[in-house]
Structures are given as structure tokens and as C-alpha cells.
């Protein structure tokens, strides 16, 4: 059957479909806004690297993991786990990404499991040994937001590690990373409230994540009530991110309820705060992309993206190369506090070099810094 007879007729009245068009547009927008896609950039890049270029055949033998850390890079549209009312233009993502697992996986993932069981180098794959399942997991840490007090909140890092196939494996792998903030303590001032902790069994059901800890937490490692609360929340955010479900998290210590850090009863369960209250947990400013120490190609415009919960959505930034301020400006997030917005900063094409992007929330009152975040990256 030819379509030609169905072309819009010349006598077709302008505006004939105005109403139904409007209704349809609205219906689609409303309906689609209920869909909050998970972030999968990392999974896409990981799978693309596995598959190799179209012309290159299907074998992954000897293929290198070219961007071991930066594979998590340029995570542009992630809003770590925030349920927000429908806003089609800036839909925050409920839960950050986890790669679909692939190949044989260690059954007890841990940080040290980044080396495949056979002992082959982590930078090569498919050299005869079963491939380790490498992925970048979103992991939350307690860090200073950059004000003068200082106030502590959660930051998110993407950490490459080796994980098993099940949601429990993923959650455990992420939690193991979360309790070790040491790699970031010198550079970012992250606290180490879980120093001396060991993650035991992690059980994931559709309704609940149960995490067993080896001890209740050292009160001396988390001295204030707020840091203790955040320490628990960092595990909640990390575990729920790993399984991509915003379900409650329950903690046990050697199988039984206990008072975490001696003060937080673990008889109940813990959840992420509601979207409008994500500021209770999350640092006001995150830089998602470039990621820490990412290497970006020269000749290509650099865009900084991140999330912010700031007054009037207003952000200031500067770009430094060594001690020199190369560029500076202001930008706005997609929405102001208490909601969490997305922001982006177009830096244009930059000459080769190492840069630090510094984003902060100026005080409306006196211009002092309310919160800030810096990330270094290299162009070459």
C-alpha cells in the first residue's frame, strides 16, 4: 500500500490537529518523565572496549584496558541517586552505574582482587586466564565540603575494581572500597570513619540490603554525631548505588544488631533521604567530569559537568594551570537548593597541560566560599 494517498491533504486545515498534538506532546512528556534511566556510561565504555572496534574481529585477546580509571570518566549526566519529581529537561538519575558482569568472577571480591586469580596483569585481558570482571563502581566517602567550619558531606568517586556477578557481590565490592578512604585522605581530606572495619556478608533482596560488619565502628575514628551519621549514610548510598535499587539498608555486627559507633542503633534500617533532602547527605558541589586526573585529548573542547545543591543555583569557577588562573566565570545549575541541579562549564579547546578546575558557591552575603570542589585533569 502506497503512503502517498495519505500525505497531508492540501486542504488540510491549519490547526486541525493542534489540540491532539498538544495532548500527545504532554502525554508523552508526562509518561516518559516517569522513566529515570540508570547511568550506564561506564557499562557502555566497558562493553565497547571488550567488543573492540567493528573491524577488529571479536577476539579480545591482548586488548588493553586503555582507560582504567577514566573509563568512569566524563560521567556527565549522573546525579547520584536522587529521586526528584518529574523534570524532563534535567532528570537526575536515581542510581549510578554498575557494569553488567562478564566472565568468571571471583566469589569474594575485594580491593586486592583487581588482580585476576591467575596473576596476569590487570592491564591486559584474555591472555589465557579467565578474565577478571573489571568495572567501575560508584563509591561514596565523607569529605569536607570546602567551607571554613569545616562541614562534612558525601562525595562520590568511581573506583575501578573486580566484582562478582550477583548484586550482593557488587554491593560487597563497593562497600569494601567505601570503608577505605585512605587513598583520598591526603588529596581530598576524606575522613576514614570506618578505619579498621571489615565488610562481612552482604545480602540483597528486592526489598532490603543487609550488611554484616566485623565491628560496630570505632568511635574515635568518627568523633561527631554528624560524621557518624554520614559514615553510615556513605555505606547506604554506596550499597544502594551498587545494586541500583533505592532500598533500605540494615546493618548487623557479626550477625546481630548493635549500636554503630556506640551511638547509632542498627535495629532499624537506613535509607537515602528523599530527593528534596539529598543535601542532608551530599556535598553541595560535585565535579563529575573530568574525573580525577583524567587525560583528555588535545584539540577537543573540554566541558566540566557536575552536580550542585547551591543557593539560587549560582556557581563560580576558575581554571588554573599551575599558579596561573587561565579562565574564570560563573554558571548556574539546572535548579537551586534545596534541589540538586546539574551544571556544566564549557572551557573550550585548551592547550596541552595539566589543569585544575575549581568550582565554588559564593556566599550571597559576603562572597565567602560556602562550598567548593576542585578536580585536576590533563590535556594532551
Amino acid at each position, binding site marked *: 500500500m502506497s*503512503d*502517498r494517498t*495519505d*500525505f*497531508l491533504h492540501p486542504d*488540510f486545515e491549519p490547526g486541525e*490537529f493542534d*489540540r*491532539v*498534538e498538544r*495532548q*500527545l*506532546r*504532554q*502525554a*508523552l512528556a*508526562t*509518561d*516518559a518523565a*516517569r*522513566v*529515570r*534511566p*540508570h*547511568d*550506564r*556510561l561506564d557499562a*557502555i*565504555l566497558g*562493553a*565497547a*572496549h571488550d*567488543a573492540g*572496534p*567493528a*573491524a*577488529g574481529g571479536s577476539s579480545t585477546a591482548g*586488548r*588493553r584496558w*586503555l*582507560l582504567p580509571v*577514566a*573509563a568512569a*570518566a*566524563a*560521567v*556527565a*549526566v549522573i546525579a547520584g541517586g536522587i529521586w526528584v519529581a518529574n523534570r*524532563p529537561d534535567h*532528570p537526575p538519575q536515581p542510581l549510578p552505574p554498575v557494569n553488567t558482569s562478564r566472565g568468571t568472577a571471583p566469589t569474594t571480591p575485594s580491593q586486592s582482587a583487581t588482580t585476576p586469580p591467575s596473576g596476569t596483569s590487570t592491564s591486559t585481558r584474555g591472555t589465557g586466564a579467565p578474565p577478571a570482571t573489571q568495572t567501575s563502581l560508584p563509591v561514596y566517602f565523607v569529605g569536607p565540603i570546602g567551607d571554613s567550619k569545616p562541614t562534612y558531606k558525601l562525595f562520590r568517586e568511581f573506583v575501578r575494581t573486580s566484582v562478582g556477578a550477583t*548484586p550482593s557481590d557488587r554491593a560487597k565490592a563497593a562497600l569494601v572500597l567505601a570503608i577505605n578512604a585512605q587513598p583520598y585522605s591526603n588529596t581530598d581530606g576524606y575522613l576514614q570513619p570506618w578505619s579498621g572495619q571489615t565488610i562481612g556478608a552482604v545480602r540483597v533482596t*528486592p526489598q532490603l540490603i543487609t550488611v554484616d560488619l566485623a565491628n560496630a565502628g570505632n568511635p574515635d575514628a568518627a568523633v561527631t554525631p554528624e560524621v557518624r551519621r554520614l559514615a553510615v549514610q556513605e555505606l547506604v548510598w554506596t550499597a544502594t548505588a551498587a545494586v541500583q*535499587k533505592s532500598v533500605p539498608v540494615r546493618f548487623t555486627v557479626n550477625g546481630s544488631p548493635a549500636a554503630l559507633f556506640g551511638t547509632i542503633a542498627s535495629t532499624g534500617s537506613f535509607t537515602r533521604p528523599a530527593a528534596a533532602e539529598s543535601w542532608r547527605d551530599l556535598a553541595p558541589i560535585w565535579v563529575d*567530569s573530568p574525573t580525577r586526573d583524567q*587525560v*583528555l*585529548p588535545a584539540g*577537543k573542547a573540554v*566541558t566540566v*559537568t557536575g552536580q550542585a545543591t547551591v543557593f539560587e543555583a549560582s556557581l563560580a569557577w576558575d581554571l588554573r594551570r599551575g599558579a596561573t588562573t587561565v579562565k574564570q566565570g560563573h554558571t548556574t545549575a539546572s535548579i537551586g537548593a534545596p534541589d540538586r541541579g546539574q551544571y556544566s562549564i564549557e572551557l573550550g579547546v585548551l592547550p596541552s597541560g595539566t589543569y585544575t578546575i575549581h568550582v565554588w558557591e559564593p556566599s550571597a552575603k559576603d562572597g565567602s566560599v560556602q562550598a567548593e570542589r576542585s578536580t585536576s585533569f590533563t590535556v594532551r
Partner: protein
Amino acid sequence: MAERGRDGSVSAADAGIADLYAAHWTGLVRLAWLLLRDDLGAEEVVQDAFIATHRHWGTLRDEASAAAYLRRAVVNGARSGLRHRGVEQRYTQREGREPGVPGARAEDSAEARVLEREGTTAMIAALGRLPQRQREVLTMRYYLDLSEAEIADALGISAGSVKAHAHRGLASLRDRMETAS
């Protein structure tokens, strides 16, 4: 270390994909969902489309052609997803989670009420009864605001056909909505 095609290194493809992702991921997942009505399936389809685009990066001229390639892959993926409906089952088994509409959460009933009030449910139901082609054209046009040429490219049909499908689809929708109200 460049194992990629003539367009440059793997990082160039990664960076390009990251840009495309930032611009199109959410919209395309939602498009795929509107076509498939299966949220995990929709993400799978779009993820596969991004991976395919990454693999063909060296053959894509610019971001516009990459975006066009991506859309074609999504539409085709959604279509074969509809044909097989295997995605859902596979995922259900793997993840041990329930298929169904997104947001099987506490606010569902409130959400449903809002949808009902706005006539969204009736319209979406009417859309769902249209032939596949009309549904695809209308969804791309009125959800993604794609041009006729872009829709034609994504569906592999002529611009004239796009117009025709749009017209027929809108006429059916109008009739059904008028009957319903």
C-alpha cells in the same frame, strides 16, 4: 595504544561517546521505553546502541551522523525487542527483579492519579493501539521533537511516509480521544 580506526584513538571514541551520552542517553532511554514499555529493556536497547556507535566511531563523520546512527540503532533495537520480548524475561531472571512499569514505588498511586487527571493514560493507551510505524513516528516527533528528515533517517523510510504516518496517526488519536471524552 591506538587500536581504533582512522578517526583516532580509543579515547577519542570514548570522549565522543561520552558527549553523545550526555546529550542523548536520557532522551533515548525514554524514547525506547515509550516504544517498548519496559524500562530495563529500554536501557538495554539504548546501551547496545551506544556500544554499536562506539564500535563504528571511525566511520562516523561528525556528531550529527553519530547521533543519527545512534537513533537508528535505538529504533531498530526497540523494534526487535518488541518482536522478541526476550529482554524482559532475560533480565528478570538475571536480576531477580520484577518487570513492569518504572517506578513501582510508593508514589505510584499518586503518580497514577496525576496521569489520569491529565488524560495521559487515555492518550498513551490510544497511542499504543496505533500501528507500530505510526506510533514510532508520533513518538519521535512529539517526544523527541525530531524533524521529518531525522525521523525518516531513523526509520529508513521517506520523509513523505513520515508525514503520512504522522497524519494518519494523529487523525486516529483525535478520533479516539473524542470518542473517549
